[in-house]
Structure formats: C-alpha cells, structure tokens
C-alpha cells in the first residue's frame, strides 16, 4: 500500500497554505510529518482525508487516484473531543457506524479495543466522567475500531502518563506491523524517532526535507565521535591538543578535521583508554528539524533551556 500527495496546492483566500506538496507514505512504515505550527500539516491531513479538495495536485493510492469509498482512514486529531454527555459505548458505536461498519461488527471491534486499552469498565459511563488521558484512549478507539488502512495520528502522546504512553506505543507498533500506512505528526521528536523510519518536514507550505531518516542522518558529515569513558580527563589532557574536544556532561565529543581519521582515532581510544562506549555522533531529529524548519518547536525549546 502506498499513499502519495502529488504537487498539492491549497490557498485560503490570499493565503497560500500548501505550495506544491509531494510526499509518500508506505504500508508497514510510519511517516513522520513534521513542521512548526502553521506550516500546513493539518491542511495536508484534511486534504488527504478529503475534507476539502486541493486547488491543484492529486492524492494517489497505490499509484491510482484515490477512491475514498474504498480506502478507510482512522484519524486522531490534535484537537481532541467527543460528545461529553454521551455514553462512551453509544458514541463509539456511532463513529464506527459512520465509517460504514455494521452495528454488530462495530460492537465486537469496540469491545476488543476497550479491553486492549484497559477501558472496558468505563463503557457505560459518560465521557465527561473520565480523566483526560482516558478520554484520549477512547478517542483513539474511534480511529482504530473500523480497522482502517491508513492511520493518521496527530500528537497522539500528549497528555498520556508513561504507562498509557507505553500502551499506545505498543498499539502503534502493532498497527505498523499489520502493514498499515501510519502518518504520525508530532512535535515530540523522541517519539517520531522511535516510530518513523521516514520523515517529511513541512515549512511554510513546502516540503523542505523528505526521506528515509537513516539516510538523511547519513548525509550529515560523520566526523564527530562520542566517547563515554571514566578516563575523560586523561583523554582530554593527552589528546585535547591534537583533536577538537568538548566535554558534554559525562561524555566527550571529538570533532575530527577529516572524516578519514575516524578509524584511526577510534582505534587509539579503544586501545589506550578504558572506554564504555564509542560511536559516531549522528545529528538528532531535533537538530535536523531546527535546521530545516527554523526555530525548534516550543516544547523542545523548553527542554533545551531546562538542560542549559
């Protein structure tokens, strides 16, 4: 399965929101759709889901123009909310039936997911009686119950405690393993790196970077080494003059003038010192994001400030 956006353009009034966006998402892999607020992520998602048509370009599914009666989407919107005063089972049934399921099939599937997400006890309660995290789990069921081919998750981890986050991680992994197309939009780069081997960065309505995360990282110069060792001071004193070195908490970052020297330096280090870990320092997704999309997203910024 493959879902493609081909040269999608969209304007609202004079504002050009998408300027020829093209990207590909494949079954069995998760695509990380990244971008700052207002970059055009939600508009892209809405066009993919046929909420409104693009001004130009097309959406392809398996190479052909998409037939929305044949392709099912599951969507967890960033702005969450269901009917606060309705019973959980009633509204889950409603949404599943809207997706074309029969009542019986919907019931079976919903009961399975309620059990899977440890929410069965709440099925006859009104939504408003649940905690925010639990409401989010209920909303996730609306995206999963009808077993869609394409799963679009917009900031799925916000508001979840670590235990629930782990539960959700497992569910997302299972869905990827089932061969589904998963599009994952988030500002929490750590989660994106965990799930997505493919990313697309949107900036101001344009795709500024798209591709395999591993290959993208490989494109960066591999002249920096990260060294974890109890002999940090010794290494710094003995090799500090020869190579550019910075101490970063309990590790040393060595920057080589020439990438070719990498092997030699690694050998010296492992031979002469007590080394715990030694590897090439790859750029983090956050570094890549900042480089392509401008300032880091607010959340990451705060983390970095806290670190500093």
């Amino acid at each position, binding site marked *: 399965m493959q879902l493609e956006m081909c040269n999608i353009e969209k304007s609202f009034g004079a504002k050009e929101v998408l300027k020829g966006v093209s990207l590909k998402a494949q079954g069995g892999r998760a695509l990380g759709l990244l971008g700052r607020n207002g970059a055009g992520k939600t508009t892209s998602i*809405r066009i993919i889901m046929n909420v409104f048509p693009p001004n130009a370009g097309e959406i392809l599914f398996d190479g052909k123009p998409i037939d929305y009666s044949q392709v099912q989407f599951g969507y967890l919107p960033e702005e969450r909310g269901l009917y606060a005063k309705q019973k959980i089972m009633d509204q889950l049934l409603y949404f599943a039936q809207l997706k074309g399921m029969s009542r019986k099939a919907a019931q079976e599937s919903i009961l399975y997911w309620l059990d899977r997400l440890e929410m069965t006890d709440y099925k006859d309660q009104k939504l408003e009686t649940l905690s925010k995290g639990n409401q989010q789990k209920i909303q996730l069921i609306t995206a999963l119950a009808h077993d869609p081919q394409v799963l679009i998750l917009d900031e799925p981890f916000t508001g979840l405690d670590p235990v629930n986050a782990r539960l959700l991680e497992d569910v997302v992994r299972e869905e990827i393993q089932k061969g589904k197309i998963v599009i994952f939009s988030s500002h929490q780069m750590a989660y994106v790196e965990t799930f997505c081997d493919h990313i697309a960065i949107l900036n101001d309505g344009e795709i500024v970077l798209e591709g395999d995360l591993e290959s993208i990282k490989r494109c960066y110069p591999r002249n920096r080494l990260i060294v974890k060792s109890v002999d940090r001071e010794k290494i710094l004193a003995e090799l500090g003059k020869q190579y550019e070195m910075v101490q970063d908490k309990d590790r040393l970052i060595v920057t080589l003038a020439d990438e070719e020297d990498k092997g030699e330096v690694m050998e010296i280090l492992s031979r002469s010192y007590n080394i715990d870990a030694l590897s090439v320092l790859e750029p983090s997704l956050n570094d890549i994001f900042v480089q392509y999309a401008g300032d880091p997203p607010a959340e990451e910024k705060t983390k970095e400030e806290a670190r500093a």
Partner: protein
Amino acid sequence: MKQFPTIFRFELKTLLQEKSYKVMTILGVMLILIIMFFPRIVEQFQNKDADSKDRPLMLLAGEHKEEALPLFEETFQSYEVQLTDLSIPEIEDEIRDEVVKYAFDLDDLEAYRYFVKNVSLSDSNLAQADTLVQILYRADALTKAGLSPAEVARINMAPVHGEVVTLGKDQAQNYFYTYILLMLLYMVITMYGMTVAMRVATEKSSRAMELLITSSDPLGLMFGKIIAACLAGFIQMALLLGTGIGSYFINKKYWEDNRIVSSMFEIPPELLVYMLIFFFLGFFLYAFLFGAAGSLVSKIEQVNTVATPITFLLMIGFMGTLISMSVDVDNLAMKILSFVPFTSPMAMFTRIAMSTVAWYEIAISIGLLIITTLLIGVFTAKVYRIGVLLYGTPPKPKALWKALRQA
C-alpha cells in the same frame, strides 16, 4: 449522504433521551390531562354529596314564595329549595348558625331580599334570582290584568330562537384554537431551531467536529440533525395536541357549555393538515438558518448572538400575526406577511384558520415557501461546509460572503 440514516438515528436518540425533552413532554401531557379531567373529577365528589342528600339548604319566605318554588327549584338544582314560615330574624339566625345556606324574602317582588352568610366571589345567585323575580313580577302583573295562568305561562315560556348565518368563518369560534396552534408553531420552530444551532455549536466547541468532518459528509451531518430535531419537535407537538384533543373528546359533556374550551378543540381536520404543511416548511426554513448560524461559532455562548437575527425574523411573523388576530386578520400587513416566506408559515396559517382565503393565494404562499426553503437549504449547506472548519471569532458577513464565493 449515505451516512444520513446513522446520523439521523443518533441525533434523534440523543434528543429524545435528553432530560429536558422528557420532563417537558411528560409535564405538558400531565398538565393537559389534569385540566381536561378536572370537571369530571370534581363531579365525582359532587355526586357523592348529592347522593347523601347533603345539598345546601335554600329557604324561600314571604308572600310570593309558593309561586316562586317551581322556578327556583328548576334554576337552583344544586340546592335543596324549601318553603319556610320562619320570621326574618329567625332565618338570619339559621344562616348565621349555618343550618341554612341561603334564603330569599319574596314579600315584595320589587324589593326582594337575599340572605347569605359570606358572599363568595363567584356567587351568581342574586343575578339568577333577579331574572326569576322579574318573571314572577310580570306573571303577577299579567294575572292582575286578567290573563289566565295558562296564558301567562305560555307568554313566559315563548320559545325565541336566534340563528347566526355565517358566510365565512366564525372568529369567535376559531380564535382560541388558532391562537393555540400559532403559539405551538412559534414555540416549536424557535425551540427546535435553537436546538439545531446548539447541537452544531456543541460539536464544534467540543471538537467532536474534527472527527465528524473526517468521518462523514457535512450535508449528511446537517440534514441528519435538522430532520431529527424536526421529528422530535413534531412528536412533542403531536403528543400535546393529541392529549388535548383526545382528553377533550373523552370529557366532552363537561366542556360543551364552556364556549372557550369547546372552541379550542373543535379544530377542523383540514386545518390540522395546513398546520402540518406550514410546520414542516417553516421548520426546515428556520432550522437551515439556525444550523448555519451554529456552524459559524466556536463556543456555545456565541450561539445566541449569531441566532438573534433569525429569532427576530421569527418574532416579526409571530407578533404581526398575533396583533392582527385580535383586530383584523385580513389587513394589508397580514396579506403581505402571508406571502413573505419567513413569516408566511404563521401569517398564512392564521388567515386560513380565521378567514376565507382563496385557494390560489394559499398555493402561491406555499409555492413561494417551498422555493425559498430549497434555496435557503442550498445556501446554508454551503455556509455550514465552510463554517464547521472555522474557529475563532464568528466571521463577518463580508468575509463569509467572500469565502462562499471561493468555495
């Protein structure tokens, strides 16, 4: 629109299960039943009193008491009417001691006296006695002039019968039911129209809309809501009207003498058909507008502001009709209102109910209403499509118009 049945079922179930809906319907039905069955219940108690021969005592005293007895007995059937030879002070004592409830001193027909302990607000005995004493006085005068008692009786009982030849409609007869039906129309359209606006705004403010617009077609969402609200309103209206009419016919004999009440329920069946036509068309016309208004706001608190022009439009039709009803239902303003689609559901309906309207006038009015409702339906569906995706302050009419033209 393929999800329409699912949406319709969900919306209807939600509306019918709402506490306010259930409470209002049950209370309304109970209130009507209590009012309509009240005379029957009261009679049950009165009957018991009569069976135990415990009717209040009414005494007749004075020179003319004997001639008066048959007349008083016939008129005051709920009292035990008896002749007495007691003196006036003795009668007064009996009344003070509540042995006797009422007494008449008929010594002088030109100045008879009525004795009672406390005069109640609804005491009509004196007024009735006035009529009876007048008859007695005339009979007395005629007898003195030489007429035989049989002739006197014939003159007094001469049957006089007046007949009204109504060529159009009797407004005294149809005023009350028209009033009730008009109120029902206005209230149901306003209430359920607002319900549609609130439901749309709730979905937007709770962000359930984010999921709905990606799961279904906006048109299906709008029509599902509107038709469900229409049916919920219709069910409630039918229950109230049905209970009223049904319980009236069960208790007809108790109400027949009450002209106001009996005229309320003698609704011609064809008028109920017109009521349905104008209810459905008027409801859809306004519900479309209310739905679109609801789609333009992001918070429930904003609904009233956006819906005000619509409720104002409804009010013009309602007030215009209501005022004209008590003056002249066929005045020029009413004639205009009965063709303007936003006011015709109430104005034309009232004219049909209270006056004589040519068939082609009715046809033109309904035709205009159908066309306008369809056009408004298409227009508001476009507004809705755009509105549900907009968040923030409701768009200004100019901005909305621009967005509509681009859509």
